[in-house]
């Protein structure tokens, strides 16, 4: 290949890009002198953890960085219509030139399709807007094109769907609509900023496959921003690894996955591959045959309500006759997609929500059996000392106005077991258990990172020496490298404190790593349960098969998602309860 040919293959050439927030000494260098090239029709993945500057890089290309962020230097040569190229970094951020490129030649899709689409305009309105803005067509023609685009991204019944609002779409549909919108003017480059992070694995697989397929038929270059090495392995032609605003490594997918040089890249890949193994098998689990909890035929039904047209909706069965056991020393995983009822089950078990039917029998430390489904206030209070919860969002679940000492010590204070000096001692002890320095006690949550906050949340859960901990997506909000650290911490604590866990998660990797047994939930029912190893590698139920096969792999050579197993509930003849 000669040099001239190579240049014409390049669509975007970013050199020494610097985007800073603020100026002078205090400037945060979100993007610090990075360079990369994008090839026509190829996918470049930029991977990094939160705060690495990958999103700011993507936004810098279109000059849509939120203030006070500003491009301070570097060039971004875009070779679109003009073979000599346009330097996007030189264009005025509100000028006509950059606006005629945005949405027209370079378009973008975002992470959270719910908030990234306007809540008060119809989907059609938002798609037509882009078409009318960049192409010389009338409204009727724009509408026809919008319907065609919706059909193209496989939205059922596009003639009707076009007049719906964002909130009337499901998460996956919203992201499809977003993609349709970005494709409206046949862009040369599609920038996708974590487009599947907010979606379920099976939906993620659908969207990834769709982007791949559209890329081929439209001949677009794709810049894909993600933190998930699994997704990278599935779709990348080239990979850039970012940390703290720097591009640590850049190369082809094969190079990065099999010949990575930088230790951080290796750690990223490892943290994903680690979750493909079971820590329980490696550590030797100490599951006893004593039943700790028996969940018998638990149901949760939300009664019928009439909608605004006066048509009654049928009652909604969030949980449909669920029965499960938890043994002492065991880690039970509950896995499912959003809306499967897994969180409802966790909440019913601890009686945050009341059950509509069934029993939740818990064997207390003194041997008594308490039925949580019917327990009175006094009994519940006792049970709640032995069952605690760890929450998903380490930012929202800690009161920002309380010190760490107050947060961790609060359960002790409420239970009245410790006061004064004893309380302080116990709090210190708890913080030490989760690897937090004693100096943390006087500080407030905002001083800590996500991973540290989750440790604080765990210390709070441990305060009353519980015997069962329900962890609802406890690692979902954390970066991949932190995820396995927190899971390891929980496993260490389990060894010393004689704990059992119910881990609710949508993440098969986390479940496989952490759990002894897994229950797979789908539309309020447990469709399959059994040993974690078996469920995660060789499931029996077709839904579980689809779920497992939609999980991205960690090897660019076996594109698993393309060959995934698809599950069609209606075709499988499963009788679904509720809607």
């Amino acid at each position, binding site marked *: 290949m000669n040099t001239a040919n190579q240049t014409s293959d390049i669509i975007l050439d970013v050199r020494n890009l610097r985007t800073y927030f603020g100026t002078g000494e205090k400037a945060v260098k979100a993007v610090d002198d990075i360079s990369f090239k994008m090839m026509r029709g190829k996918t470049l993945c930029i991977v990094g953890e939160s705060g690495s500057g990958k999103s700011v890089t993507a936004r810098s290309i279109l000059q849509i960085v939120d203030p006070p962020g500003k491009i301070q230097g570097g060039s971004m040569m875009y070779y679109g219509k003009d073979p000599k190229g346009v330097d996007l970094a030189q264009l005025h951020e*509100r000028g006509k030139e950059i606006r005629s490129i945005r949405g027209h030649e370079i378009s973008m899709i975002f*992470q959270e399709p719910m908030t990234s689409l306007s809540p*008060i305009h119809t989907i059609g309105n938002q798609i037509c807007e882009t078409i009318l*803005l960049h192409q010389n067509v009338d409204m009727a023609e724009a509408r026809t094109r919008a319907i065609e685009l919706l059909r193209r991204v496989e939205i059922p019944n596009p003639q009707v769907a076009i007049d719906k609002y964002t*909130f009337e779409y499901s998460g996956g549909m919203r992201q499809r609509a977003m993609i349709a919108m970005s494709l409206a003017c046949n862009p040369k480059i599609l920038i996708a900023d974590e487009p599947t992070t907010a979606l379920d694995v099976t939906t993620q697989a659908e969207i990834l496959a769709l982007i791949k397929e559209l890329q081929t038929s439209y001949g677009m270059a794709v810049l894909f921003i993600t933190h998930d090495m699994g997704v990278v392995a599935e779709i990348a032609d080239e990979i850039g690894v970012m940390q703290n605003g720097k591009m640590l490594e850049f190369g082809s997918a094969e190079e990065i996955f099999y010949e990575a040089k930088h230790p951080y890249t290796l750690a990223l890949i490892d943290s994903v591959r680690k979750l493909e193994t079971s820590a329980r098998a490696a550590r030797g689990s100490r599951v006893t045959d004593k039943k700790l909890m028996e969940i018998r035929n638990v149901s949760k039904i939300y009664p019928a309500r009439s909608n*605004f047209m006066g048509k009654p909706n049928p009652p909604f069965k969030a949980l449909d006759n669920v029965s499960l056991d938890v043994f002492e020393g065991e880690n039970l995983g509950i896995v499912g997609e959003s809306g499967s009822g897994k969180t409802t089950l966790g909440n019913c078990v601890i009686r945050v929500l009341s059950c509509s039917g069934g029993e939740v029998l818990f064997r207390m430390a003194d041997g008594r059996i308490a039925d949580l489904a019917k327990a009175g206030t006094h009994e519940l209070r006792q049970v709640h000392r032995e069952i605690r919860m760890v929450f998903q969002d380490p930012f929202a679940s800690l009161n920002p106005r309380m010190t760490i000492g107050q947060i961790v010590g609060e359960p002790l204070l409420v239970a009245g077991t410790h006061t004064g000096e004893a309380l302080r001692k116990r709090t210190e002890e708890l913080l030490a258990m989760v690897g937090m320095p004693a100096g943390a006690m006087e500080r407030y949550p905002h001083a800590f990172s996500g991973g540290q906050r989750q440790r604080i949340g765990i210390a709070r859960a441990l305060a009353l020496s519980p015997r069962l901990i329900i962890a609802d997506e406890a690692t979902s909000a954390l970066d991949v490298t932190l995820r396995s650290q927190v899971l390891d911490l929980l496993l260490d604590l389990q060894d010393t404190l004689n704990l059992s866990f119910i881990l609710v998660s949508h993440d098969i990797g986390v479940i496989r790593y952490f759990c002894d047994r897994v229950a797979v939930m789908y539309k309020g029912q447990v469709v399959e349960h059994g040993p974690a190893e078996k469920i995660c590698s060789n499931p029996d139920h077709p839904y579980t098969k689809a779920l497992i096969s939609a999980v991205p792999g960690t090897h660019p050579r076996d594109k698993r998602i393309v060959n995934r197993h698809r599950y069609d509930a209606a075709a499988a003849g499963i009788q679904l309860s509720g809607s």
Partner: protein
Amino acid sequence: MLNYIFKRMLSAIPFMFMVSLTVFLLIQAPPGDFVDSYAAMVASSGETLSPDQMAELRHRFGLDQPMIVQYFHWITGVVTGDFGYSFEWQSPVKDLVGERIGLTLILSLSAMLFTWALSLPIGIYSAVKRYSIGDYVFTFVGFIGLAVPNFLLALVMMFIAQKYYGMDVTGLFSSEFQNAPWSLARVADLGKHLIIPMIIMGAASAAGLIRILRANLIDQLYMPYVVTARSKGLSETKLLLKYPVRIALNPFVSSIGWILPSLVSGAVITSIVLNLQTVGPMLFQSLMSQDIYLSGTILLVVCALTVVGTLISDILLVILDPRIRLEQ
């Protein structure tokens, strides 16, 4: 939608009954009655009423009967359109209140429009150019507007208007039109007189609304959907008006519901200072003299208008924001 409006109207009926009862009891809660305050007034002009005369008056006004009987008497009248008789004005309540309610409505609506016209552009400017000099100036003036009592502002404006422009600014009509029948000239006269009360009453609520709009809009300006719209290539002005401003508009519409009661009860002193023939001063006077049927009727009508205002603002909200559903 129609079904919903019908239901809302229906549910307003028991509500209005409860309000009427509460209002009636509250008006009578202070010790004494109209006859006592009448006696005090007469006494101040040097005459006295004998206890016999007072008992005679009470009997004539029906004030010697138990409260519940008085209430029942009044409320059955209200249902048939007879709002009772004002002791103080010696005339049927209906005649007294009728025109004043209309004028109050006109004043309220024009004050509301003034509020909107002032606060919408300023609020948008303050949010978009926040921490700029302009924003600080508007913030400063706004806080002064909030902090200075309306009646003081009214006095100052009256002074300026009279002194430098020679305008007759008190009242809602010039003296020659005061009791004249409605004509184009009278409407024009009303328009002229409306300006100052409109500015005074609108200014304070505009100051509040600017703060609300500014805060709401700042929240919306960096929402992901704004970034999406920008990434499509929309110009900043179009983008601003189509997305974040639309969503930040909700408090404007909600203000329809509360602007009426605040104008009647909150602007009493201003109305007295400006000598406006709205219901505010009349309500104040009737409460002072315990003129129960008059004050009860005014409060009831204001309450009814508030119910209607809230309903209108709810309906507008549904039209403006598709996320809001009427029944859930």
